[in-house]
């Protein structure tokens, strides 16, 4: 275990963590405004990847050009599919339940999540393939050799994940702090009733929150597909679970906290699986089998010390 190996682990953890962070933002924004946990968010994420793959496979000519040129089209396709699904989910699954007991939207979310998974499982079709996807499907790959930065190997897709995540955070922070809609979101998050009295269209704000979350998730899924080479109909389950964990770790309701939580989670997983096996006293608790254990140990410890999460504010429960 050399210093370069540790750096490699940190880099892998960072990439994984920013991917978690992008998903976590969706959980945190919806929770911040509606106090519901959109457990179908993992499936919204998964739909993005399949939307991109669908366009890539069915639009003639896309496969002929370099993937770098096709990438913007894939991203747009992913975003369109995810955002459409999220907005539809909000309109038809969550809005009718607004004001219902909190458990109702939670159960709806679980049902919706199974529904979306099964739709892809049973109906997603690639040219020349059979109907439905029962196993992981190959995702197009960026051409070119991986980059070597001082002993650390990073693929183009990994670098892309980092760039996209950084960009997304900057834009999102600006959007929430500076724009009219962003400020309307803050107001709705603080007190929906008063915000409505002040003339804010809270329904629209809620839709925007769902849409932004879906947008980031869609981008995350495309980078994930590019990075790992496959996507599958059930990839949203674990990703959603990790994203939700990251959101709680960072302080649910706080956008920067979501990204920070993701990075902490990703790095913790990487170190637990890569570094711990090389430490004399802890080697038996290391390895990839243990990485989820350590991720959740960190979550529990953080919540014991700071129940509101890393960056969360201590607010009275509004329920």
């Amino acid at each position, binding site marked *: *275990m050399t210093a370069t*190996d540790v750096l*490699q*682990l940190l880099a*892998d953890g960072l990439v*994984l963590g920013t991917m978690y962070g992008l998903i976590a933002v969706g959980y945190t924004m919806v929770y911040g405004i509606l106090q519901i946990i959109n457990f179908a968010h993992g499936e919204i994420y998964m739909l993005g990847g399949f939307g991109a793959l669908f366009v890539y496979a069915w639009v003639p000519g896309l496969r002929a050009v370099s993937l770098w040129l096709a990438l913007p089209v894939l991203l747009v396709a992913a975003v369109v599919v995810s955002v459409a699904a999220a907005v539809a989910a909000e309109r038809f699954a969550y809005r009718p339940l607004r004001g219902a007991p909190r458990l109702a939207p939670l159960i709806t979310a679980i049902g919706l999540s*199974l529904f979306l*998974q*099964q739709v892809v*499982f*049973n109906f997603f079709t690639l040219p020349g393939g059979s109907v439905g996807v*029962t*196993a*992981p499907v*190959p995702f197009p*790959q960026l051409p070119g050799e*991986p980059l070597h930065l001082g002993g650390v*190997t990073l*693929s183009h897709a990994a670098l892309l994940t980092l760039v996209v995540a950084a960009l997304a955070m900057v834009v999102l922070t600006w959007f929430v702090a500076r724009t009219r809609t962003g400020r309307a979101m803050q107001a709705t998050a603080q007190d929906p009733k008063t915000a409505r009295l002040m003339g804010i269209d809270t329904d629209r704000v809620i839709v925007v929150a769902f849409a932004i979350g879906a947008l980031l998730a869609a981008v995350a899924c495309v980078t*994930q597909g590019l*990075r*790992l*080479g*496959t*996507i*599958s109909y*059930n*990839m949203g*389950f*674990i990703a959603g679970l990790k994203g939700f964990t990251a959101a709680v770790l960072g302080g649910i309701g706080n956008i920067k906290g979501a990204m920070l939580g993701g990075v902490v989670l990703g790095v913790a*997983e*990487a170190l637990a*699986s*890569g570094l711990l*096996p090389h430490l004399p006293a802890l080697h038996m608790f290391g*390895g*990839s*089998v243990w*990485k*989820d254990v350590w991720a959740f140990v960190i979550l529990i410890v953080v919540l014991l010390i700071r129940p509101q999460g890393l960056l969360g504010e201590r607010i009275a429960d509004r329920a």
Partner: protein
Amino acid sequence: MHRLIADAPDARPRSGRSRSLALAAPLLAGSLVLSACGTRDDGSGDDGGQEATTVTIGFDAPLSKDLAAVGLGMRNSAQLAVKQANKNELVPGVTFELAAKDDQATPNIGQQNAAAFVADTSVIGVVGAYNSSVSAAMQSTLHDATMVQVSGANTAATLTQGARYKTDPQREYDNYFRTISTDAVAAPVMAEYFFKDLRIKKIATVDDKKTYGTGIVENFTEAYEKLGGKVAVHQSINPDESDYAAVVNSVKSSGAQGVFYGGEYPQAGPLKKQLVAAGFDGPMGGGDAVKDDQLIPLAGGKSADGVCAHSDGAPVDSLDSAKSFVADYKAAGYSEGYGVFGAYVYDATTALMKAVGAAVEANDGKVGDIAQLRPKVVDAMQKVAFDGATGKVGFDAYGDSVNQVISVNCVQDGAWKNGVKIVTVK
């Protein structure tokens, strides 16, 4: 109401063997009952005499859904064996007929098919199934009726030698036979291929924490270390995840020259791809669940090169003894290929018919009551020995084939090259 209680599709790929990827859509229990009633002939089997008596061979395999192509190829092969037996008068005075049933790769349907075969007094024995899990569900039903069950595709060692096949093999069902070799002998063959042929002295092992994956890694490790090889690191992946960066890093930093993966192709492909992307260019071994055409696109085409996985039995195209089978199969004009198992099913069907012949002969040349003939066929089956399409056909004390052949197949230039090495174990 059946739809409400029928099996729902799994939200994830099935655990266990790839062949048990029973991704069945909700199935109507009612339709099974209907399909189980479709016996066409009942007037036969009364009196021997000079007239040719019709004896039915039951056949069970997945004939619809994902695995239909394999199952139909197996059915055609069995059909071919029956046709040839009738033409060549394999058993004088007996005309064979094949009754094929679809199990949809689902154990409970297979069990119902088995019950239907038992109830049909024209059926002397059953050829099938394809999935080991389905055969396991059929075994006891057919055993209670002392009917022969012979498979040309089941490779789970437990079917013949029981759950403790490694330490204390026990044959539970004396009516069960197979013409193909088992998984238990495969891992040592792979270990030898990696250690001796590929000269990999230090290997990393990875499993997917499932029964099949951990089992094959265990068997592989045992054999590999016995040969003098060193396992540099052992890791596990979570098959629900697709990011194997941690495993890839530890494989790389362990200094291993190759990897052996215990699991199935949906994870093996991405793992290989990520290994190559991280700059690891050693070969990757795996069991027969890795040997799938889909592996290659999943591993990213070019980076799939260097994946080696075993398959049970020799590739049919490579066998001299199978040439006439291959020619006859083509001449018969079936629309599905005979696949990996066709020749083994062909031999299994012929073995069953030969056993019927021996039993009839011992019965003064008369078929008589089929239900009474069934146990005699089981006894005769144990003694069957002949040269079939796949080589020597015969059964040992457990009902396993005397002809244990394992093939090593490797991906070269983006395509599977079958039978890179073919090993006869017994």
